């Protein structure tokens, strides 16, 4: 079948919200161009934080604060989608890996939420926690500091991290190094949101 190229009859692209998200972005933060930051409430992005392409930060229901040296990877969603008002605070040195869904009230310093994990509404995640891939933290749950969520809901306390401060420092050093690398690899479009 031959035919001339015809203009596609798809509906027009979704309307860009008229209100620009009020944001306080630190000058050393790295935000990719394709990152999506939407919503009416304030979004604070701390020093050396990295937001990867296609990461979604939704401040429709509340303020979102991303701490120093935290990294939000691709397709991660930080923000509550529906329901009442709730702020989200992400601490320093936190890794929100690819595809993770964060609706928690707060995530403590140094924690890692791994690929495709989900943290429910109003949950509180402590410091230096680790939520393994595809795990779920239920809404309202509180995780103590140094908790590891792994293997389909099992919990354990990470004594290595707890008892040895040098290991926590090593993690921070590793985080700084990753951020330096991302500074070179991710083209920075933070000016769009400043």
């Amino acid at each position, binding site marked *: 079948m031959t035919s001339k190229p015809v203009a596609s009859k798809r509906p027009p692209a979704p309307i860009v919200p008229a209100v620009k998200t009020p944001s306080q972005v630190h000058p050393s933060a790295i935000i990719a161009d394709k990152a999506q930051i939407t919503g009416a409430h304030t979004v604070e992005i701390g020093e050396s934080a990295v937001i990867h392409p296609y990461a979604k930060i939704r401040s429709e229901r509340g303020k979102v604060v991303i701490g120093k040296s935290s990294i939000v990877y691709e397709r991660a969603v930080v923000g509550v989608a529906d329901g009442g008002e709730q702020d989200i605070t992400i601490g320093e040195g936190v890794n929100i890996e690819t595809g993770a869904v964060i609706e928690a009230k707060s995530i403590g310093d140094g924690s890692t939420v791994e690929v495709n994990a989900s943290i429910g509404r109003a949950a509180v995640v402590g410091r230096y926690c680790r939520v393994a891939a595809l795990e779920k933290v239920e809404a309202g749950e509180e995780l103590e500091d140094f908790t590891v969520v792994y293997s389909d809901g099992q*919990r354990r306390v990470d004594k290595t991290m707890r008892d040895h401060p040098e290991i926590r420092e090593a993690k921070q050093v590793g985080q700084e190094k990753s951020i330096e690398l991302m500074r070179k690899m991710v083209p920075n479009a933070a000016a769009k949101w400043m």
Partner: protein
Amino acid sequence: MAAAFPYTHYACPCSDLTSNPPASLSKRTSTSQAANIDTTEDRTFNPHDRRANYALYPLDHLLFCDECDSIRCPKCWTEEIINWYCPTCLFEVPSSAVKSDGNRCSRNCYSCPECTAPLSVTAVPQQASDYLKPTETAIEAYMLQCGYCDWSTRDIDMIFNKPTKITEQLVKLRKARTSASSGKDSPEKAAKHDSISHDTAFASLTTFYKGQLSESGDPQNPFSNTPYSSPANLARIMNIYGGLSATALKKSREKPQPMREARDQSEGFSAYGFEETDHEEAITSKLRALSWEDTTTAEQRLSTPPNNDSRFADQLWPVATQLRTRKGKRCKTCRQFVSRPDSKVTHIRYKIRLLAMNNVPRLFMRPLHSPNPAPPNPAFRLREDDPMQAELQAHVAQQYVLTIRNPIFETIKVTLATPGTTPGKVASRITILCPSFPVGPAGDVWDEALSSSTASNSVSNDGSRKAAMASLTGKAPEDADRQPEAGKIWDRTRNSTSVIVEIVPGSLRPPPSIVPKTEDELAAEELDEDDDVLEVPVYVRAEWETVIDADSFAPGEKDSKHHGRHGEKVSKELAYWCVLGVGRIAA
């Protein structure tokens, strides 16, 4: 019973149901319906027999022995270990090392005791205070860390000095710990100590039992094929080479002691008494203080010998990975390898792999007319097997297309036989419209492409207008109106032939009879689970001719089976039962 209809299961000739048992066993009553229905002297295969499932396999579970020219099922082959390897480091361990050191990797491959993920050797980061003394060399310290749950050997306070030879270091540390804990007890307490460490117990038990074996004069291994196994031979050889020493002669004259079990701790046996020792009190008080997660599970305790006695999570030792084996399969009758993987661990190819799929004609069954109207777009069909999942109605004749696919490179002549009514409680009538037909050879893909102009027989070449249209559009004319005819093949492609099978499912309830039935008869008519599945036993016989070439003989061997000279055709035959699962009969 397979998950989805239609299925085909093949019966291995090794079972009683498919071949004649020896005369002494045939007195035992087997299936009551085993009437000699079919033409051969074998009994009809009853797929509803209670033992039928032990003989039936899907075709991909079967191998084929080409020396014996028959199907081999998992009961007909012996497995032989070709080599041992560690799944983590892929290092091949010689079997002598496996016999002495055990079946675990001895080379740094350990798994986390909490989550069974592999442990990796990581450097322990230095204390921040060390940065103030740059002149001192860095203290090398390593630990094993789990990549998944963050468990590390620092949880049990264990640090290594070098990143290699972890096994050695672990053994040393373990010895240090167990000797330290036992050295703490005073000598009197040690005597009353109920449990001894696992390693000492194992060592004492092995020495004790080895001593018992030599003392009690156990009978020689009947399976050993040493030339000295008969006592007469042994005595003769001993006479030639000199007699036994005085002590051995004395022992042989005395009555040998029967073998006894270990009795006390010196021999490795430890009993548990009722009185509480301090050792146990310490454990129970600790148990009261800690929570559930801090105790070990039975799985964790069984994962490795050092963990057998550990009750608390902070005593768990890293688990050495268990070695895996590469196995070859040998035919039980002729000892030829029917499946032999490559001995190199990283190569996943097989040196020899004789699959039944490549040597045995394969049967498929599908309904002739699909009962549901085909949806306009095949992408919208949710499940492929919808037509067959619908239940069959009793007494309604159904027609199925039975396709035989030939995997070998010669034309085979296939004969099918099936009892007129299916054996079992529900009798359905089966008719194969064309029971005997040839199937073409399987060839290379190039053969098919080059001969595509003459491949399809369904399109006639008679130059009529219909044929011209058919060759243009690629479809046979009036496919839907074709009526199945008795004695005619339905369809033929290069290496497969299809025939029509007519099935009239029987009813699940027998017709009401005038004569009242006894209780036994009523009980016999009760349907068990899966008696409503319509399974058709089919006896398939394939005959073909092959050319004997020089390679198939061992040099110098004269094979009496084949009468002809090299290069002459010889006829071969393969026969087996298979069961076609058609569907369930609606009540």
